[in-house]
């Protein structure tokens, strides 16, 4: 009923005349008649008002929790109104990839600013304009490290399981092995990577090691030890980071990592049932990893009059120039999400971001303490170095706890074992909610 056409009957008639046909369907003369459709079994068109009602109804039975204490790859942070308001300007939202620099300086500059902020947080020297999400970022980064005789990627088990699975899908058909280092085999101790054990796993076939900071269990890794050891053994390190924690934590570059990746969803993007999120990648300029980096990169240059301006650059890496020799196939990425992230970082600013991160880690440590007053314990009691996620073990089944929390309007942490829950605290969680859950945990 609504089809967004803007043509009148009279105009249509004139246009058909100019072409020399009597109706639009005549233009399909090249399509064999035998192939042409019968009627589609799709509902007939509706008015906008009806569509509004119909799709609102789809959103009604999803449960929207008052308080979200679940992270595990998707983080519910406060988003300042100014970010939503400015990012929805149609010049940003309805533009294509900025191929025409003279007409797209605003978009190009915003990407340049995003690259700068990612470099600042990671300590790296070059970042791309984004990739799909944290998992594909990790998979693409792993491929950047592969060499002829180095085709094994080592991944400790304490990283996001989705990252491991995505890496496998991405790389297994190119003769690359993803070797998962198991906790049960001693590679993880007190929740973090055991550097000495990891050292034994590295050999001349190892392309790189992928670790997460903080890891899936929420624990801060001794990343510098891992990087030093790995480099000593001649292998590269990719650090997958929750970038929110980098407001406080040492940067991946400072720890010695070769490539930093992650998902910047915590920067202003709603959890939105899993997407769109924001994969980021950064590395050092003088490393061979830079020329192998996938995706768009914006560079600064000057125009004919010497004005500073920005362009898509180093395109010799990309599919539209190199075709089958390209490093990656990525074309459209998550540019608008990157815009949102840079607006978020500018709105929070240096002090604001530190406050958010400090609030998250403080609430998490308070919650961990309150949740373990009864029979519940922390899974890694000897390790207090967690950021804003932690795992509890309870005699009561995890799903029972989840149910009880739901009755209080709280989305509990993620059950990751029959009796284990991975919790996450963000600045949106109130102390009163933590205290309510602590009551439940006391009886668990």
């Amino acid at each position, binding site marked *: 009923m609504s089809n*967004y056409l803007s043509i009148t009957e009279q105009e249509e008639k004139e246009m058909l005349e100019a072409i020399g046909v009597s109706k639009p369907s005549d233009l399909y003369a090249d399509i064999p008649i035998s192939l042409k459709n019968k009627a589609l079994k799709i509902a007939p068109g509706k008015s906008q008002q009806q569509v509004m009602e119909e799709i609102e109804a789809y959103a009604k039975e999803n449960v929207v929790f008052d308080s979200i204490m679940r992270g595990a790859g998707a983080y519910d942070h406060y988003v300042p109104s100014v970010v939503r308001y400015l990012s929805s300007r149609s010049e940003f939202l309805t533009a294509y990839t900025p191929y025409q620099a003279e007409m797209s300086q605003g978009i190009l500059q915003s990407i340049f600013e995003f690259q700068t902020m990612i470099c600042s947080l990671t300590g790296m020297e070059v970042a791309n304009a984004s990739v799909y999400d944290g998992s594909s970022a990790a998979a693409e980064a792993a491929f950047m490290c592969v060499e002829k005789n180095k085709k094994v990627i080592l991944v400790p088990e304490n990283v996001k399981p989705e990252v491991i699975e995505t890496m496998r899908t991405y790389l297994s058909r190119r003769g690359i092995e993803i070797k998962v280092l198991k906790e049960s085999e001693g590679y993880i101790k007190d929740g973090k990577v055991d550097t000495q054990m990891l050292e034994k796993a590295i050999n001349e076939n190892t392309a790189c090691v992928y670790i997460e900071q903080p890891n899936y269990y929420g624990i801060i890794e001794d990343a510098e030890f891992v990087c030093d050891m790995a480099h000593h053994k001649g292998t590269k390190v990719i650090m997958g980071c929750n970038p929110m924690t980098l407001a406080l934590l040492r940067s991946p570059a400072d720890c010695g990592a070769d490539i930093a990746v992650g998902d910047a969803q915590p920067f202003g993007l709603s959890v939105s049932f899993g997407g769109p999120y924001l994969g980021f990648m950064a590395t050092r300029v003088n490393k061979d990893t830079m020329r192998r980096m996938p995706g768009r990169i914006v560079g600064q240059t000057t125009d004919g009059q010497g004005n500073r301006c920005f362009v898509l650059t180093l395109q010799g890496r990309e599919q539209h120039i190199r075709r089958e020799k390209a490093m990656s196939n990525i074309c459209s990425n998550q540019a608008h999400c990157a815009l949102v992230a840079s607006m978020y970082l500018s709105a929070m600013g240096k002090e604001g971001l530190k406050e958010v991160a400090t609030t998250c880690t403080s609430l998490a440590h308070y919650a961990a303490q309150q949740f373990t007053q009864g029979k519940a314990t922390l899974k890694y009691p000897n390790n207090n170095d967690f950021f804003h996620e932690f795992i509890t073990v309870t005699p009561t089944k995890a799903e029972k706890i989840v149910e009880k929390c739901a009755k209080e309007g709280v989305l509990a942490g993620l059950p990751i074992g029959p009796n284990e829950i991975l919790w996450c605290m963000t600045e949106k969680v109130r102390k009163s909610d933590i205290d309510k859950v602590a009551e439940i945990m006391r009886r668990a």
Partner: protein
Amino acid sequence: MKLIFERSRKGVRCATIRPLEVSTYSVEKKYLRKELALPEVAEVDLARHYTELSRNAFGVDSGFYPLGSCTMKYNPKINEELASLPGFSRVHPRQEVDTVQDSLHLMADLSADLMELTGMDGMTLQPCAGAHGEFTGLLLIAAYHESRKDTKRTKILVPDTAHGTNPASAVMAGFEVVNIPSNAEKGVDLDALRAAVGPDTAALMLTNPTTLGLFEKNIEEISKIVHDAGGLLYYDGANLNAIMGVVRPGDMGFDVIHLNLHKTFSTPHGGGGPGSGPVGCKAMLAEFLPKPSIVKDKKGNYEFSCPKNSIGKVSTFYGNFAVMVKAFAYVRTLGSDGIKEAAEHAVLNANYMKAKLEDIYPTENRYCMHEFVVDIQKLKDQTGVSAKDIAKAMIDKGIHPPTMYFPHIPGVIDESLMIEPTETENKETLDEAIAVLRELYDLAFKDAKYLQEAPHNMAISRPDEVAAARKPIVRFEGEY
């Protein structure tokens, strides 16, 4: 324009959060960073900064955007509002399945509509863009041949007119690429195809209409050649807008397809994403689709499942969900009738522009589909004005230039512009663009230099791309 870092002033604050309600936890010192550089601006600075950036950007809402292959149709606002409803935007991807029934319901219904529209039996919404979809679809093809112990199928055939992502995706999926030349009609050269197929053929990737905006008339014969050789047919859905509701890829013989919801289904491009690249397949490939899939149990509840021989995950969760909501709203608005009408008008608009331009801008002498490619070679030989020069001069006229230099077949199509008006433009807009293109053509003979130096009315003139690549400056290195 100032960079946001150049607007930064020490100690200025913008957004603020609830004061900490518990005691401060101090992360162990050895883990702490020494410094952090981020801009410090007030809200008014932020608003002015991004408003200035937006004034130096150009979207579909700003004006005509005939960027070929990209389907820059109008992006309805209702879709945006629906995608941001709390019932969608505030739902965590790892919530218990009984609390996200509506999300799964919407994904299942969108998949069903897309399957019907394309003639497919299975669908995944997990890929985040077209190229991601290509990669996923090719993995399905690899898994299919492998499951039949047909392990020698190592090659993907790709026409020379294919988008760069096609060969790049094939290599990422572990295949070798064989280029197939075009015939005089700019379609697949059937003899070359017959010579290329064999027991090592995994699949042929095809865009139909092709990247020249022409319907591949020999599609049935192509399908037969590839299938007789034991290969499969892959459909790059970038150009579906021309034929949706008119002819289905599944009926043309395609086994695997990807769609670009950010093209055909009206979701905004966002300056380069996020998009969404669903992949559809015929029944024999469904067991390989990415996990999780969504199924309905006996009681009518939705749940996650894993296809029997799934290729695994291609992204963290279920894909770009918010984009799916927008596309679903679009499909439900247009419905079966409106979808076909949209396709017909996309084709009408393209043919109208073509008819009004082809006396001076040569193109193929047959009806085009949703787009057409004009050849500027002769104009360049006569005047020195290139496709790029015409494109840059269009910027001064407030029109986003067409796609330049794609497709590229050396010696056959070099200087080209690919014009895709889309169905949402009216005749007046098209007439204005036609007048501009005719005026620029005349100007090429009178004042080539003026065109070669265009644009003249923008904040910047042509950037020095060589300098940008030679000494890359890829971040702001000043103090702030």
